[in-house]
């Protein structure tokens, strides 16, 4: 480089590009362009007309250079995404592309980005968003894994075991819980690689130092003290919540089900960081009597619980079909089969459900036979609820309905998940999932 000027010239596949070292430094030391100008390598201008020759596609280089210059990604229609991704991988700029691809999550700004048809027959069990924008879909005994480019990887196959729940431990690792297979002492929970689909670790449950087979249900992770929780049922009435260490994969605890609290069959587990408690919800239609409880695993006690045993009698009554603890950890939000939202105060044991009429989506209409029960999610202070083929977004302290997301086809939504700044909605009828993302911030 000439002194006083940090200009750099590239010849990429015959086309000349000129930029500055400062712009290239944006690429970072972990990329090919960043390393190229590192002091370890000869800092003098390269021979051959003072330019670096790179034997790659010039059109893609132009897009990527522009990305480094402005932080924005503009892909001309003549460049297929896959080509761009491949070139970005060569330069080590894939993370930059992903970061520029979509903006920070906001339920009211979401736009449909893609619709990915699934291959598996039958109803989907669950869809989970990964931390980097990928997702995985559980169908029967298979888990299909997609990275953030929505490229499908080798699926995780569980050899005819029914998958109950899946979850990303990190972008590279997926935990899968499955129904126990009769006649085998192998447990119902494993850690798989998201890129290769290989089994990396099998989680075990031991009672009195004896390893037992079990069926694992709902999953939750605690990222503050690196624990994995799963509802478990063993064959010899060993019902409860298993706890494993995320780093070692070893069982560290088991919370046995006290009488009156349904834990082993739970539909939903959720770790609450603020109060160091685990929310456990076992709901209709899995059980006739819904149970929601808050467990303190260190004290081995149920610190808060609610049940509708004795309250509901007929099938037409309002039943809690899904529940989530709100992000502030003070209340639990529940939804019934008519998509009424309800709230329960976690700080008092007496309240019961406060059904909120304001946030009711529409006039009560009895869902048709084919529809799925509503599900709930909370993200960034917004509350999401699915019914039929749409997802409603509620905002503010009063939970006012602000947006409705509706995909093009595929029937009612059986599950949805938010993560990696994206929302994934899995449709029940056609095995299609929609990807919703927030567009990058406006230019001005």
């Amino acid at each position, binding site marked *: 480089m000439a002194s006083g000027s940090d200009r750099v010239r590239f010849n990429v596949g015959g086309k000349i590009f000129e930029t500055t070292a400062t712009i290239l430094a944006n690429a970072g030391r*972990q*990329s090919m362009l960043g390393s190229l100008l590192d002091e*370890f390598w*000869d800092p003098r201008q390269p021979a051959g007309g003072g330019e*670096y020759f790179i034997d790659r596609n010039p059109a893609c280089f132009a897009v990527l250079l522009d990305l480094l210059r402005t932080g924005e990604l503009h892909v001309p229609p003549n460049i297929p995404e896959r080509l761009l991704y491949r070139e970005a*991988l*060569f330069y*080590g700029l894939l993370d930059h592309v992903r970061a520029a691809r979509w903006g920070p999550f906001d339920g009211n700004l979401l736009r449909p980005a893609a619709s990915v048809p699934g291959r598996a027959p039958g109803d989907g069990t669950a869809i989970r968003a990964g931390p980097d924008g990928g997702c995985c879909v559980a169908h029967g005994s298979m888990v299909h894994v997609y990275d953030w480019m929505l490229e499908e990887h080798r699926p995780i196959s569980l050899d005819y075991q029914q998958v109950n729940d899946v979850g990303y431990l990190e972008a590279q690792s997926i935990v899968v819980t499955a129904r126990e297979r009769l006649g085998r002492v192998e447990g119902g929970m494993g850690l798989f690689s998201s890129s290769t689909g290989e089994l990396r670790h099998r989680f075990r449950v031991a009672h009195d130092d004896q390893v037992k087979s079990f069926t694992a249900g709902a999953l939750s992770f605690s990222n503050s003290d690196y624990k994995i929780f799963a509802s478990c049922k063993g064959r010899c009435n060993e019902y409860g919540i298993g706890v494993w260490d995320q780093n070692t994969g070893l069982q560290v605890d088991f919370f046995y089900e006290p009488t009156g609290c349904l834990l082993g069959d739970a539909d939903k587990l959720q770790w609450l960081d603020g109060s160091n408690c685990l929310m456990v919800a076992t709901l209709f239609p899995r059980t006739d009597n819904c149970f929601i409880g808050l467990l303190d695993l260190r004290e081995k006690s149920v610190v808060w619980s609610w049940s509708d045993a004795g309250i509901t009698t007929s099938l037409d009554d309002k039943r809690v079909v899904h529940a989530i603890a709100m992000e502030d950890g003070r209340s639990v939000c529940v939804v019934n089969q008519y998509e009424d939202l309800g709230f329960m105060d976690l700080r008092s044991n007496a309240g019961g459900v406060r059904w909120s009429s304001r946030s009711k989506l529409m006039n009560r209409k009895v869902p048709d036979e084919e529809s799925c029960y509503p599900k709930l999610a909370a993200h960034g202070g917004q509350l999401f609820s699915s019914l039929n083929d749409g997802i409603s977004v509620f905002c503010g302290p009063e939970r006012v309905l602000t947006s409705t997301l509706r995909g093009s086809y595929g029937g009612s939504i059986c599950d949805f998940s938010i993560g990696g700044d994206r929302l994934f909605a899995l449709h029940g009828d056609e095995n299609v999932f929609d990807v919703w993302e927030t567009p990058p911030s406006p230019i001005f």
Partner: protein
Amino acid sequence: MSAQKKRNFKIEAFKHRVEVDPKYAEKTWKILEHAIHEIYNHNASGLSFEELYRNAYNMVLHKYGEKLYSGLVTTMTWHLKEIAKSIEAAQGGLFLEELNRKWGDHNKALQMIRDILMYMDRTFVPSNHKTPVHELGLNLWRDNIIHSHKIQTRLLDTLLDLIHRERKGEVINRGLMRNITKMLMDLGSSVYQEDFERPFLEVSASFYSGESQQFIECCDCGDYLKKAERRLNEEMERVSHYLDAKSEAKITSVVEKEMIANHMQRLVHMENSGLVNMLVDDKYEDLSRMYNLFRRVPEGFSTIRDVMTSHLRETGKQLVIDPDRLRDPVDFVQRLLDMKDKHDKIINVAFNNDKTFQNALNSSFEYFINLNNRSPEFISLYVDDKLRKGLKGVTEEDVEVVLDKVMMLFRYLQEKDVFEKYYKQHLAKRLLSGKTVSDDAERSMIVKLKTECGYQFTSKLEGMFTDMRTSQDTMQGFYASQYSEMGDGPTLAVQVLTTGSWPTQPSTPCNLPAEILSVCEKFRAYYLGTHTGRRLTWQTNMGTADIKATFGKGQKHELNVSTYQMCVLMLFNSEDCLSYKEIEQATEIPASDLKRCLQSLACVKGKNVLRKEPMSKDIAEDDAFYFNDKFTSKFIKVKIGTVVAQKESEPEKHETRQRVEEDRKPQIEAAIVRIMKSRRVLDHNSIVTEVTTQLQSRFLPNPVVIKKRIESLIEREFLERDKADRKLYRYLA
């Protein structure tokens, strides 16, 4: 296509993709291998990064990742083996420098290799569960250099030798040490721990075990502690300069164990310089050092505390049972207070005001103060002394300080009721003789006793104050009513004392002179006139009188005497000579008091207003007394004191003790009844324990006495023994 072919439908064998060039992979690898060689040979300037990157990319893309990776391992291993040889060849002191230099080279090379192979690191490595290039480079370095047979022990020996030399006072290259230990840490905490830290701790342990042995033979305790402290600081400094921060706790615990824990007992008991000497000589700095060092080791504190406690108990015991000390109660208490102050200061300055040490100090004082059963009396005497004269001209705050200190000693007393007895006596004397310096100080002391022991403890003391006040009012009223009739007669000042509040001894009143008697009768008439249903008795043994006397040559003096003395002297208004018998008959003063009174009038030089035949110190029954008209004094006012023992005499002491025992009986009985009333049925031992706890704030009841009281209560049918179990008592309501 023919129809036949159409029918015989056949699946074509899958055609493998055409290999570009069978030697492609080999060629490409050669280029990369060459580049790695050049990088290690510091000859990278001719290399094109772009080309190398592209080659590595292509190899991975064309599924030769495995070949690339294994080639890297082989090539790097070969270079590291070469490097190992050159490090091994380094002479003596250059060894570490060579190692450090090569480590720097390797890191740089590793960075460049990683740059070239970045694509492999990103795609091939994670999906094939390989070790990433950087980590691989560190592992290979560890296996080929650090764990190489010839380097491993040499490295350790060199490091330990350098540290040893630094401990001996030499200056070493700390920067180099820092780099080498940093390298070990970079290779993983287990490498640092196994290859350096563990042996380092072992060597340090033996070094300090030897050194401490040497120090303890030739140093006194203070010096030893200084040295140990310095060593400890040196090790902490060493860690901060060139070891892993996690080593600090480990190495300090080695030093603590070797230099302190192992020699603790010997240090504490070291002759002429151990803990006891430090305490005696107030060596705050040494004590503080000992405290801070011993705090680091288990049982360090308890060792100091035990020695301090036994020292305190020993010296305290000597103080309280030393017969010399018992002669002067004020000095006795002052010494206790000084001792307390001294040790309070030590605990405050050197021992960080540690609660456990304060407790040890308190329990020691409690132990030895109660060894002497005259302590309550002495403490009361000390207060008496202070309140009589000791506090003249002292500010209010200082008075409070002195009283607070006394209260502290008071708290240690077990027999608080004995103190109360004496305090009452001494207070009575002070009040009646008008000797108290400050009413405020008196009251403040009573308030302190009240907060400490409760209302009932001080109610009688307060009663005494009330009596003093009402007496003043009564006297004013008396003189106001009698003003017209009084004339020139003697002035009478009466203090009316409530029976029970005051420590009065029943005494037969003496015969008062006629002049006085008439005034007394007037007062009696006045008092009984204003208060009905009361009885007045004269406590002639407690009063005082001022009389005017004219001696030879017309010399006039005002004599300040006790009531008894006044009675005796008044007799000499009409006679010049009286025999002992005559005086006794005329006055009816009890013999012992009379003797004392005559002694003070006739035998004290400068105050002998009487003359005695024969001249001798003691009073005998057949002595004769004359008015001494040769009496002279340069003072107009002459105070003739009675010969009174300040301290109690042996029989008096006995008497007080008996009275205390007598007073305790109803208290014990009351406690027993209180307990039994609530519990109904209780066995003997439980009663004893409960009574003891209830009365602890006043005194420690003797179990034998408790048993006697129980028996007495059974006799009086408050209690009965259980018919089935003789050990059980039953409350009879």
